């Protein structure tokens, strides 16, 4: 069984596409669509890596990232932000909060796959 990736994203067709390409690359992909309960999901079953959207229902991805970095269990877990908010200020905020990588939508499948590989191997 491959390492676990948790994809926190609320767009069903993006979830399906990313799940497909990462599963085919050997990762076990879990998904979660709600911002409010995202931390509960992470702590209940800690993943090896997280792909995190910013604009989520209930709670911002930035707030979730802040909590992830403040929690001993998830402090070191690689987090790749994947967002439609591609402004420089958003990138700076994400990196300041402790993101491992910041990717903007629209994305290329191969880039997502390569970045996940890099972060898992780091």
């Amino acid at each position, binding site marked *: 069984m491959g390492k676990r990736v948790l994809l926190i994203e609320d*767009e069903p*067709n*993006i979830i*399906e*596409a*990313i799940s*497909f*390409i990462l599963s*085919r690359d050997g990762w076990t992909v879990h998904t979660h669509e709600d911002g409010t309960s995202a931390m509960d999901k992470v702590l209940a079953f800690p993943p090896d890596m997280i792909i995190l959207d910013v*604009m989520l229902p209930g709670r911002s991805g930035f707030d979730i990232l802040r909590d992830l970095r403040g929690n001993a269990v998830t402090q070191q877990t690689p987090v790749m932000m994947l967002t*439609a*908010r591609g402004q420089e200020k958003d990138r700076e905020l994400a990196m300041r909060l402790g993101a491992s990588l910041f990717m903007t*939508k*629209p*994305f*290329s*499948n*191969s880039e997502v796959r390569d970045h996940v590989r890099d972060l898992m191997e780091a």
Partner: protein
Amino acid sequence: MPDQGLAGSRIREKRLDRGLRQAAVAESVGISPSYLNLIEHNRRRIGGKLLADLARVLEVDTVLLADGVDSDTLDQMRGAAAAIGGAVEVERTEELAARYPGWGGLIADQARKITALEEKSRVLADRIAYDPQLAGSLHEVISAVSAIRSSASILVGPEELDQDWQRRFHENIHNDSLRLADSSEALIAYLEVPEAVLEQSGSPFEVVESYLDQSGFHISAIEDGADPAAVLKQADLQGPAEAVLRQFLHGYAADVSALPLARFEKTCRKYHYDPAAIAQSLHVPLAMVMRRMAQLPPDQGHPPMGLVICDAAGALTFIKSVPGFTMPRSGGACSLWPLFGALSRPHQPIRLEVEMPAPNATRFLCFALAEPIGPAAFDAPPALQSMMLVLPDPPETGSVPYPVGLSCRICPRNDCPSRREPALKGIAPQAEL
């Protein structure tokens, strides 16, 4: 633009600008003070030698008195210098406007248009930066594009896909393309909406003031008891300006209800336009009297009166100008006016005679008062509002007027401790840029 018929008004303006008494000027040119008074109120025609003599005493070009330039144009030209800056000979504004009235009008028009365009830019920038609906629409478009791109990449990739997966991704692309079409249309429709806002030629306050200026800030219909809603509908303002005017008209109607015009005019004349005496006589709040004084009909022989209102941050929310007096919304007004001083002394009425810098050394009598607005609340700072009533050319009292200005950039006072920025070149040699 020049107005041949108001030479008397220009003579009066020039005399006040130079701080000269009517009797002294009349004596210098060999006429009686009462005859000069008739001339100044445009009740006697003037020309020839007498005009030349007055020009000499007032130290201005005869052409300037005869043809003149209206004070609005001059205020706008000076305001343009203050707002835009550069090496501008502000002290020669009047000369420029008199010699080349077309250019003077063009400068004033351009300054107005620049202000309007800046306001439009600000509205658009705010809209792009902070509008949640726009952010949501863009997010929807990018999300749909992302899903389509990712699904399509999977379908055209080199690896084999079974038929179930192919069908699912085809369906996903189809659904996302429909979503993209809808969200794109919605986005385009949304971006076309702000026309009503953008067509306005300035901030909402300026639009309302421009409307009120048409009737000298006196609205007969409200004075006669008309419903503010009907007046608002007739004004036909759009967007935020409509909301600003609605609030103004309701306040106006409430003031009229408490202080009907006929009685108020009579009391004003009886107490020589002293707001405190009028308020005491009529048992009404001072602020109400100040507002009503600025609403007096312009054609009933009342002295001209300006009124400005600002919030606790000094932002001007209402400006009724009078000849020689206005305040710049952009570029920063002079902080020495009692309007701003009152903010540090709420509930304390301030009466102060002030004087503009030479050569336009016009004097004004100012009445300022800052008071909390809105409902009182415990443990919360009050929302303060300051108001200042301005009467040009008050009777001389012998006291030294307090020095004020329009804006630091065009103010010649070298030694002003309140100067916040240097003056433009040629305005104040020791305080230049």
